[in-house]
């Protein structure tokens, strides 16, 4: 395979990696269909779906910076209902809200701050979302996962977004309401 009188420099040139080197015997393996199935770049909508009570909701994945296992919070005296308490998130004081009140649902969040604090249910999570006023937490009962879809797969309300509801997604498990996280906190 090496020329009979190849010098060391030629041998080393052959040893070194080059992007344009040719390998005739290696047949290209088709890349996996996982990539081919995705819509073209930029077209894709990614949603994080979560559960509150018996209903399913979703927010845009891009605004969620972190998903934490629910943990006891620090109590804020005389806090108004949607605010549950605050969380010290690596030095950043992060308020945590109960999104179910804004959605007109009965609150499912147990007492999670103060002296009567209960142990949070195991599937409960805190979604840390980016807002104009800094990070904020949303206490949800469970997180289902990430849905990747084309934008036209979302059923949008006629006449633009109403309140914080940006659309409804039909999934195998039932309808899933896509909401604006900023609206949930207002």
């Amino acid at each position, binding site marked *: *395979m090496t020329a009979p009188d190849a010098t060391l420099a030629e041998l080393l040139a052959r040893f070194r*990696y080059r992007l*344009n080197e040719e*390998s005739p015997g290696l*047949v290209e393996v088709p*890349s996996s269909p996982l990539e081919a199935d995705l819509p073209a770049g930029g077209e894709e909508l990614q949603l994080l779906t979560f559960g509150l009570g018996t209903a399913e909701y979703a927010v845009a994945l891009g605004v969620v910076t972190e998903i934490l296992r629910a943990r006891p919070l620090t109590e804020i005296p005389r806090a108004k209902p949607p605010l549950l308490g605050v969380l010290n998130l690596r030095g950043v004081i992060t308020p945590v809200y109960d999104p179910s009140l804004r959605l007109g649902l009965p609150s499912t969040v147990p007492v999670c701050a103060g002296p009567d604090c209960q142990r949070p249910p195991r599937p409960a999570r805190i979604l840390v979302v980016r807002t104009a006023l800094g990070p904020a937490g949303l206490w949800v009962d469970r997180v289902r996962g990430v849905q990747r879809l084309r934008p036209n797969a979302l059923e949008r309300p006629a006449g633009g977004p109403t309140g914080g509801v940006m659309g409804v997604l039909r999934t195998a498990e039932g309808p899933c309401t896509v909401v604006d996280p900023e609206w949930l906190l207002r």
Partner: protein
Amino acid sequence: MSDGAGQTVDVCAFWVGDAIYGIDVARVDEILPRVVPLPVADAPPHVEGVVHVHGTAVPIVDLRRLLPGGPPPRTAKPKVILARIGRRRVGLRVDGMAGVRRYTEAEILPGPKGNAVLAVAGDDCRLLDLLGLLGNRPAERGPGL
């Protein structure tokens, strides 16, 4: 770096059988500890199959079937080296890793002619001609990998 005796070669060294072989570190993307390839029909015997690595299918080549050698050292842990050949990637199953070594050109001697070993470096590390080793396989098996 320019030509001259000061030029060095960085080699990713690994065990195949009882010998140490080396490839250019620039080829190496990743070392995978446990890989279970998906068998491919009609593949040549040295191709174990393919694995999905970050969404792309990568063929796994068992270097132990291509290079002669006795039993590997007892301390060696088998690995798969994810290496680049041109714009493609290939997984090389080896008997164990032997570190990254730097050789100067003075330490490297041209290897025996007519096989996949380009040169032999200082402490008996055989610099592999990966293109030649994988590219010039006999084609009797038809359109395999």
